[in-house]
């Protein structure tokens, strides 16, 4: 099931002939769900936990899926799961402690310390800017600019018209460039 085939007849047919089982959905969409989680604002360190929660829901609810828009259905589950996760994140981290090290984000040996530092600093600036944008614009922006989804794919996921996606992207880019401009001005002035 390719991402653009998760809607309409393909998914409905797969559901009807029994080929739309959980293992197949998981194998096809796990990487997408992981990318959506980050785009929706899920912490990098918790991506694995959130993905697990998402697919627990998927496994439980898959028999109830109507076959209309598999991508949109998965994206909606991911969005609600990330939202719930973010809501209880503070309380949960206070109680259970937090795994700060992402096992898949360990430093690569080919990167020198200076390169790593530059990259980390750029990521920090990027996250700071993204955190100042509205949820809808940020999500569209990250999905398009960072995760590389097309406008049509985003429309499919969000279950909205493509024109709405372009509008959100337009405003998101304007906001982002404004933030970059402010950052540059601050850098010139100095601390």
């Amino acid at each position: 099931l390719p991402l653009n085939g998760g809607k309409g007849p393909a998914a409905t047919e797969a559901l009807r002939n029994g080929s739309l089982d959980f293992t197949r959905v998981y194998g096809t969409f796990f990487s997408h769900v992981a990318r959506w989680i980050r785009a929706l604002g899920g912490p990098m360190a918790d991506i694995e936990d959130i993905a697990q929660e998402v697919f627990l829901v998927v496994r439980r609810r898959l028999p109830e899926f109507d076959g209309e828009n598999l991508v949109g259905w998965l994206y909606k589950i991911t969005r609600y799961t990330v939202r719930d996760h973010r809501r209880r994140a503070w309380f949960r981290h206070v109680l259970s402690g937090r795994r700060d090290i992402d096992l898949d984000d360990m430093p690569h040996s080919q990167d020198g310390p200076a390169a790593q530092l530059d990259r980390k600093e750029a990521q920090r600036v990027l996250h700071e800017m993204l955190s100042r944008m509205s949820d809808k614009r940020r999500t569209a922006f990250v999905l398009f600019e960072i995760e590389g989804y097309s406008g049509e794919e985003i429309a499919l996921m969000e279950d909205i018209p493509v024109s709405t996606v372009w509008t959100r992207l337009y405003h998101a880019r304007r906001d982002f460039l404004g933030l970059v401009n402010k950052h540059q001005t601050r850098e010139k002035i100095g601390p």
Partner: protein
Amino acid sequence: MMKRLLEQTDSRDPLISRAGRIIGSAQPNAPSDAMRRRVLALVVRERQPFASRRGWLARPAAIGAVLLATTAAAASFHSREGWLPRAYRVAIERVRTAGTAVQSDAHLAARPTTVDEHAGPTPAETALDAHLEAALMTDAEFAAASVIAGREADASIDLAAPPVEARVSRGASRAKTRRASASATWDDGAGTVVAAMAMLRRQHDAAKAGQLIEDYLRAHPEGALCEEAMALAVEAASARGDARESRRFAARYERVFPNGRFREALRPGDSH
């Protein structure tokens, strides 16, 4: 078709070029195969993620238990009594109050004595002393000191040192600290009798002793040490040289305790 900022890092517009470089620092999120396998294994086993599986029940319970224990320890330290010892204290006091009379009956009944203020401690005084000091020894000095300092009210609060409690407590000083700070809710006036005895025998202040005895008899007309208090009253009156008052207390003693153990010693003919 909108072009991505990431593809415009070489743009002539420095702002767009800079924005493209910033976005380029964040790589697309590509989960590893190891993560994919881990999550699938956990989902197939229908296990909740670590944080939501353990954190929501175990840790709040542990934190609550720690808070509760800390609060209890602080309260116990603050009051210097603790919660269970207070219950034990009440029970022990009740046993002691009942046991004092039995004890005194046992070793005083066979000791007829006389009251003679000029010839040193008489057998009656000795018996009374022995009885009271056996029960209240550890607090006698404290009571006397309190009375001397003019703190009769404090002295009468709870100076009784139950022998049972004295054996139970881990140290005399600690027990005394607790007794001194305890409330007067279980006071039976024994401290007043002890104070009167100390005042009469050690400070030789018969007037003050008589006043304390009267206070005790007024507050506890049927107290556990009523008999001893009346005997002390006769002795105090004799020490003051008030023969009339001495006879009056002796007659009252005869009337209240016709078979009392100090009856022989307190006969009007024996006292001064």
